[in-house]
């Protein structure tokens, strides 16, 4: 695998902080609330190649498993091992015309950390007339700047994903360029996805 990935427990550190505060209050209050530490892990993934133009392009989608936080081999593209896949600016989910799974997605407008529960309905699958995540600047996950020719992930768009195995996850795309340049230009190497996501393994819609 030619990508690196990091994960860190951001929510957990916050919770730990809250816990400390709660603990420090314990002396005064005799009714300590149990500090529930069940927040989801936020995975931060960088530089997933999506058929890049730097000579390493495969001509194929790059398939990704949210459960395992790994890239799935192209040979397994006809399985339900992957949930979401990337090729240039196009994102597909394992459903309909794209794969054998029953994955679905909807675009939530808001802040990633504010989304605490996946909606009950409103999910779309890939079908022959349109993809669940529409293509085109401003339509789906990215904006295209016609002056600078730069593709940017639209801030405040969160993909709420029902995975191929019926679990819920939320994902925020961060960058389309290799190594997440602060101010990308058209000379930066494109088609490298970076994103953050949280995966709920218990089958509930809780994404907190």
């Amino acid at each position: 695998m030619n990508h690196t990935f990091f994960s860190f427990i951001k929510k957990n550190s916050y919770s730990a902080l809250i816990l400390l505060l709660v603990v420090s209050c314990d002396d005064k209050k005799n009714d300590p609330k149990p500090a529930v530490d069940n927040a989801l892990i936020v995975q931060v993934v960088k530089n997933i190649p999506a058929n890049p133009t730097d000579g390493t392009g495969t001509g194929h989608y790059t398939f990704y498993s949210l459960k395992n936080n790994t890239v799935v081999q192209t040979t397994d593209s006809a399985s339900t091992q992957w949930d979401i896949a990337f090729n240039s600016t196009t994102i597909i989910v394992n459903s309909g015309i794209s794969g054998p799974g029953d994955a679905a997605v909807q675009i939530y407008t808001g802040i990633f950390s504010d989304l605490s529960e996946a909606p009950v309905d409103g999910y779309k699958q890939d079908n022959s007339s349109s993809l669940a995540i529409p293509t085109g600047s401003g339509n789906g996950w990215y904006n295209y700047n016609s002056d600078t020719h730069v593709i940017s992930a639209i801030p405040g768009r969160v993909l709420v994903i029902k995975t191929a195995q019926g679990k819920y996850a939320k994902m925020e795309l961060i960058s389309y360029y290799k190594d997440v340049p602060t101010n990308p230009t058209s000379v930066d190497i494109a088609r490298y996805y970076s994103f953050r996501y949280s995966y709920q393994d218990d089958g509930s819609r809780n994404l907190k």
Partner: protein
Amino acid sequence: MYNQYLNRGWIIGLCWLITAVCFGQNNRLQGRIFTEDSIPLSNISLKLKGTSYQTISDSNGSFSFPNIPPGKYKLIAADPSSESLVLPVEVKEGQNSPIIFLVKQAVKETEEVVITATRTEKDVADVPTPIKVIPGTQIRQMGSLRLNEVLQEQTGLAVVSDAHDTGIQMQGFNPDYTMILLNGEPVIGRTAGTLDLTRFAVGNIKKIEIVKGPSSSLYGSEALAGIINIITEKPKEGFSTQLKQRYSTGNRGYNVFDLTGDVSYRYKKAGIYFFANRYQSMGYDLQPETPEKTVPPFNNYTLQTRINYDFSSKTNLVVNARYFSETSNGNTSFSEDNITYKIYQKGSQYDWNLNPVFTHRCSPRLKQTIRYYATQYYTNSEMTNLADGSLYDKSFFNQTFNRPETQVDYLWTENQQTTAGTGVNFESVNSTRYTEGKKFYNIYGYLQHDFTLFKRLSIIAGARLDDHSVYGKRISPKLSSLLKVNKWLSLKASAGEGFKAPDFRQLYLNFSNPVAGYSVFGSEEVKQQVALLQQKGQISQILMDINSLQSIRAEYSTAYNLGFVVTPHKRIQWSVNFFYNDIKDLIETGAVAIKSNGQSVYTYFNQSNVFTRGLETDLSLKLLKNFSFSAGYQYLEAKNKKVLDDIEAGKYFARNPVTLETTKLTKADYGGLFNRSKHMANARLFYMNPKTGWGGNIRCIYRGRYGFGDLNGNNILDDGSEYVKGYFLWNLSLSKKIYKRFTVQGGIDNLFDYTNPVYITSIPGRIYYLSLQIEFAKK
């Protein structure tokens, strides 16, 4: 106004003596006109203000108006080369008026007649819309050479440059929305929407009239933000000629040689004015580390002439003609498919026009004007490989415009005037950038009624109907009013509609950039061209359903201007204007497909509804002898309504590029449309002493910060890093007249050497210049 009065170098010291003798019988108003040395002045145009009565003085300086109805009038004596003089006269039934002597220095009021706002001659103080006049004398004192240099120093106007052209932004509109007129006729050659103002030498400009707010009710398409009318010199009485040579130099390779000359001759009924200019620029380079110059060297020539012939005091013919040509060349290099090309680029352009105007006064009340305007703009560019001399790319653009037009002005009473006109525009364009040559025509008529109530309130109502061969009919109304509250306060209010029809480019463009690799197709071409690219396998992704795209419609605006002019003292004038422009169906480019080279395919859409609003204010002070000070300021907001709605609905966010955290935007975060400065200001001090011949000025322009583009992914202007910093430009000039015939002028433009190589390529840094002018005149 006062500048013009004070600074007319050649006529300073000449006193006018007007003797007006009014004979009661036949109600004839007659008199003679002399210089202070008692030399009769011939061919001076005289008229009675607010009427169509007009005459010309003969070789004895005599003039007469027969059959004038009894009443009080203002007699205006206009010299084509100078400001007008005004004399109140009274025609009494059966009585002779006393003989009146008029000495120029004693005249307190100078009339400034403008034409652009109403298409009739009108005193600038009576125009109900925002108007600004830049006199030619001021342009020469500023030491400007090209039109963009003059306009960038005016309140509320910002010079904006794209890759090709330098244009003007007015009331927050892009340059495409301001109509540029040359002696009342539209200039063509907007290859990419902006009319390049550097095409205009300023040495022959008598004055520039700037009218703000929509004027489609008179001028039709394009006059959405306003109008800039360049009025060139007319033949002066007698013979005069001047020659001016100027050399300018600066850092970064800037070197300009400018040679300007003109000849004017007028004898009795006939006159001719001829102007020639050669402008040679070595270009300049703001980024020496790149292989190409920021502006490559270029050379241009302007020839312009104006011929007057008066058949009688009632009938005259004016013929304007212009020829301009420019060549440029330079090297550039770029990479494509990992091959580096070194290219020699050669460009040329020319334009010409011919404009005969025939005016006939059928009666004292009825004036008829017949105009014909023919013009062509042509440009081509050739790129050859430096390595082997092979052709890399070749392109041309050829536009023609022809317009016969007739206008009738009828004066019902002293207080009511109707203007009606009709004409046809025939336009054609052909270009390597279009699939084939295209033709349009547009039949139009306009009607305007101007009436004054109670001598204080004047109202102008007008409308124009355009019937376009492609777009059908469009009516553009306008209503404006002026209330003279008292001697020192006037209120102005106007409301009108403006429109801009989709141009050739937006309809028919078929262009693929050979360097950058992207493609732009007009809305009538896009379906076919994308299908062709798909067949060739050059499309990697279609971004929207191209077959469902609609034809684009005209953009239009509804605009309101409200303001006042305060003149508490004849040496102090303060004006304020509030404006609001509500613009619908703006045509913008948007990507429809991505090519296999990674670049996009664009076409044009009616996308946005935007508004621009703000205020502009000007102050002019002439408190000290020989000095004049003026200052101006504009506050501007220009915003996209949909973006505002979406921010309110919580749909806009920003991602911090370093922390990668996302936050929700508020309306206060939204900076509005790109390339607009919220604050712009100017201040200038002029000095001119006609006795010693010394003159000088210091001018300062401020352009506040403005957005250049999106950096944080939401495609709107919100983050501080998305702004170009505000800047000041300081310009100085000093001149001295020697032995009456010679004038030496020197100056420094951009004193503090401001440059911004990344975002502002039109400012070359500090420039020093020196010029010598020789003039000769014989009455």
